[in-house]
């Protein structure tokens, strides 16, 4: 089984990227805010940037070992799709895909499979964002890569196209059976496209796990916020936390003392009206209908409601926390 293993250090201007990761026949997302060093990791794997230390290997073949091995980019057999796709503007779709030397029949089969056969003779300038992306993917796959690298595959698309393309891309990536690393700044995209997500911040891996693991058991406050949750401080008293400013959060295992808890919107039921016992108090900042639910932001917390009735901006609201995770402990929390 083809496996990508990397363990690299790469010094950037403000910080160093340090990442250790192994990917089998799966899609792993490198997710994190812009400037976290995610693209740097892809470029190191592709051979377009030399890491300052460590090792990169794929399928038992060493591509990079500090001071000893550095296989040039053209001999690594990676399928690299950079952020804006970088289609060759002077070549037709067909010739873009055939650039790596793939046989015409193979090119035709790929175009067919990705649903872009009718664009074979078009120049990239005439394509839509979604079409460009499929051409870039076809071109990368024509290389018969042992690793696929995708940098922000959905960034160049508008919000509407994005959801459509995302579902198709998720299906295409599952079908390739090639270890895939993809970079995204959006947790929802990462969760939709990848089996596992590596959350990165300032060059460091914060947590690696399935999207469900990341939301159910976030490693720290950063992961909570990145996955769309809120971080609240309070005093733990056994199986509950008495939150600063009101509200009670049930936690899995008993704790004592100052703690920070992470709560996700789907674990907070937002109800109209002032807070009663044990609920989070708040005033509605904004309530948006999202995927059949109403997402309510009220100052420091976000919850969900079934109906937008009574949740107009400025209205009092309270949130009932069903479940929270402790992500930090210490006397100075909330001080």
């Amino acid at each position, binding site marked *: 089984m083809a496996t990508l293993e990397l363990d690299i250090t790469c010094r950037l201007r403000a910080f160093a990227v340090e990442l250790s990761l192994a990917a089998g026949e799966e899609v792993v997302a490198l997710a994190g805010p*812009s*400037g*976290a*060093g*995610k*693209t*740097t990791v892809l*470029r190191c794997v*592709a*051979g*377009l940037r030399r890491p300052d230390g460590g090792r990169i290997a794929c399928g038992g073949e060493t591509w990079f070992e500090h001071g000893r091995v550095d296989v*040039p*980019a*053209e*001999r*690594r*057999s*990676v*399928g*690299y799709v*950079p*952020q*804006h*796709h*970088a289609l*060759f*503007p*002077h070549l037709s779709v067909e010739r873009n895909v055939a*650039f*790596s*030397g793939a046989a015409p029949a193979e090119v035709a089969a790929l175009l067919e499979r990705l649903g872009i056969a009718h664009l074979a003779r078009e120049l990239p*300038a005439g394509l839509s964002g979604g079409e460009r992306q499929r051409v870039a993917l076809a*071109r*990368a796959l024509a*290389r018969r890569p042992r690793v696929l690298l995708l940098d922000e595959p959905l960034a*160049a698309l508008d919000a509407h196209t994005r959801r459509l393309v995302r579902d198709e891309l998720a299906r295409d990536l599952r079908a390739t059976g090639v270890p895939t690393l993809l970079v995204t700044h959006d947790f929802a995209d990462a969760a939709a496209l990848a089996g596992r997500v590596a959350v990165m911040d300032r060059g460091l891996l914060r947590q690696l796990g399935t999207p469900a693991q990341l939301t159910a058991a976030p490693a720290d406050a950063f992961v909570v916020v990145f996955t769309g949750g809120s971080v609240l401080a309070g005093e733990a008293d056994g199986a509950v936390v008495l939150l600063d400013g009101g509200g009670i959060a049930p936690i899995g295992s008993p704790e004592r003392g100052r703690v920070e808890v992470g709560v996700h919107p789907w674990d907070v039921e937002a109800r109209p009206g002032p807070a009663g016992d044990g609920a989070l108090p708040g005033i509605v900042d904004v309530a948006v209908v999202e995927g059949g639910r109403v997402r309510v932001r009220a100052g420091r917390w976000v919850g969900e409601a079934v109906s937008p009735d009574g949740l107009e901006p400025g209205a009092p609201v309270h949130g009932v926390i069903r479940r929270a995770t402790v992500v930090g402990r210490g006397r100075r929390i909330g001080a």
Partner: protein
Amino acid sequence: MSRALGALALGVVVAFLSLPVVALLAEAPLRDVPALLGRQVVQDALWVTLKTNLAANVLILGVGTPAAWVLATRRFRGRGAIMTLCELPLVLPPAVAGIALLSAFGREGLLGDPLHAAGIDLPFGPWAVVLAVTFVASPFYLRQAIAAFEALDPELTDVARTLGASRTRAFWRVALPLARGGLVAGWVLAFARGVGEFGATIIFAGNVQGRTQTLTLAVYQQLDVDIDVALALGVLLLVLSMGILASYKLIGAWRRSSSTSPAAFVPSPSS
């Protein structure tokens, strides 16, 4: 500023620039021009100009293109200094370029002895013309070529490499075709400057008919011999220059219309 003043200034500009051209055409015995251009001195000058410029352009394109690629795509210490050095011939008086070339490659010059020992005598021969033309014309090509290469999205050559192309192949198959318009435009300017070369050539290469006498040098010499030949040469060079200018403009228009912009989106700095 008043409109009238602006219109007046514009009129002066147009008159000043077009008057000499009109005058040249008026003074030249246009009907005799074909016959005058058949003279041996003109034929010799044409031939010298053709072969020296051909050699100079081969040097400029052959060495200048890879040099421009390195300057456009790599960042290294001294790059700024080299870029400035490349532009020096633009501001250097051609006569100074001539005497400088003589100081370097002349019999008494810096490299005179080793060159002579190797049996190479550059000054006052056709190769001196080639060097003079190369020296003064190369910046026109280099500047445009560097700009054309700098405008390319580096992701394009990066992707080409991940697709199995070596650096050289990525250059030939991606960078060169995409920079083509800019390179041709730069080459046209360098060619025009080279054909018009006078000062550096007359000092470094002399003015020997059939050996180093180019079209411009022949104009100068024929002033004292036969003014009609000088005028006929003037008409020939005027037509040539207009052709070059027109093709430069056409290339510009073609580059804008068939603009193969590297990406529809502004490439973002890699994180």
